[in-house]
């Protein structure tokens, strides 16, 4: 199933935003190709939720612009977007069936048959009040609501965080079936690397409101390496290529942007975890800098 990857589903250009004195996003730019599954990775407070809200058109950023399938994010782009925030806006007093009926009234592109099937797959009892559902079930219902809109772009803020391991597999299964079946573009935020491997084609690493890495996962893994050696050897590396370096006693290890071996150091290709940790730990604002190691 070759997906069309030419059109940008999401185009974030120079986006900056502040909450009072606190700068949440700073000159963020990246593109999400249509049909891709992208992980938005960052520590708590890195700006993931703010960025997703801007992409969903729920927050107008102070600077820069966000486009969704070519449209400026806002009212015009809303029908194309399925957004599930961390606090799913569901009404606790409504039953599952009433919630789905409400979705049908509020969304012009609502697919009622699909909503019912997804709710059945998720074993959501139609007569149960939303407020009585376990957190995992509630998260499933929020996802059903987003999917039944038949969105072209799905924005999910930590969709797996409230889920137990079984529900996690079920939800990723439902998501990936959607991707395989309809080529839906997905952007999901997470800070659990294990949730990303094999799920996401692309990754955007956010730290202190800035984009540190925006890349195809396979390509990023093939163009970085982890060099291991004596601190003096690692310290002698070209500083501009070093993403992050750490010294433990006389040994040092560095994540290096390079497809080729560097110097005479032992090296291996990073695992996804090593790659992401390297970028998450990289000192800001720019990873390009000379490191000095003992």
């Amino acid at each position, binding site marked *: 199933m070759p997906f069309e990857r030419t059109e940008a589903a999401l185009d974030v250009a120079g986006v900056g935003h502040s909450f009072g004195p606190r700068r949440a996003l700073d000159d963020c730019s990246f593109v999400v190709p249509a049909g891709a*599954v992208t992980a938005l990775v960052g520590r708590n407070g890195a700006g993931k939720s703010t960025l997703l809200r801007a992409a969903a058109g729920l927050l107008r950023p102070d600077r820069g612009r966000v486009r969704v399938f070519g449209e400026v994010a806002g009212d015009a782009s809303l029908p194309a977007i399925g957004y599930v925030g961390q606090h799913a806006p569901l009404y606790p007093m409504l039953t599952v069936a009433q919630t789905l009926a409400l979705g049908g009234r509020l969304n012009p592109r609502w697919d009622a048959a699909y909503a019912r099937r997804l709710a059945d797959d998720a074993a959501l009892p139609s007569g149960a009040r939303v407020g009585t559902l376990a957190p995992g079930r509630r998260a499933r219902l929020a996802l059903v609501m987003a999917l039944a809109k038949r969105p072209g772009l799905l924005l999910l803020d930590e969709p797996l965080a409230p889920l137990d391991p079984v529900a996690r597999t079920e939800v990723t299964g439902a998501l*990936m079936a959607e991707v395989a079946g309809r080529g839906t573009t997905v952007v999901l935020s997470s800070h659990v690397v294990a949730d990303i*491997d*094999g799920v996401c*084609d692309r990754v955007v690493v956010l730290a202190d409101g800035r984009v540190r890495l925006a890349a195809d996962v396979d390509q990023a893994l093939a163009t970085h390496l982890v060099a291991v050696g004596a601190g003096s050897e690692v310290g002698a590396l070209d500083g501009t290529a070093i993403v992050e370096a750490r010294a433990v006693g006389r040994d040092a290890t560095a994540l290096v942007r390079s497809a080729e*071996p560097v110097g005479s150091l032992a090296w291996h290709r990073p695992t996804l975890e090593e790659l992401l940790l390297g970028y998450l730990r990289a000192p800001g604002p720019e990873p390009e800098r000379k490191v000095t190691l003992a």
Partner: protein
Amino acid sequence: MIFRIDRRTGTAVYVQLVQQVRQAIRMGRLTPGDQLPTAREVSEDAGINPNTVLKAYRELEVAGLVEARQGSGTFVREHLAPLPDNLGRLRRELAAWAARARAAGLDVTDMQALVAEVAAGTVPGAGEARRAV
């Protein structure tokens, strides 16, 4: 064919898919002509990106183990090198060895390391980790 993905091992998911198909073919659980599940089926069952499944299948195809037939799916190739007749005996010998190794205090990881090292012999460049010269 049901894939079991372990997300804690650190082994990339597509590598796990490749290894499990190889293993199933080697052990005779998959035989020539058998169809692999579609990328969509694996995506839904195991929660894996369809592109990751296709990447694994492409690698198996390049290795000559499976073939993609236009419009109908991915199948285990005919005329694979036949399993040796004495596979059962080799397996029993290994089981006896594993029992001795366990008695000697080795755990599974120790045994795997030992087998990998012996099997690799002195061949350099096995795996993509080495000391550059």
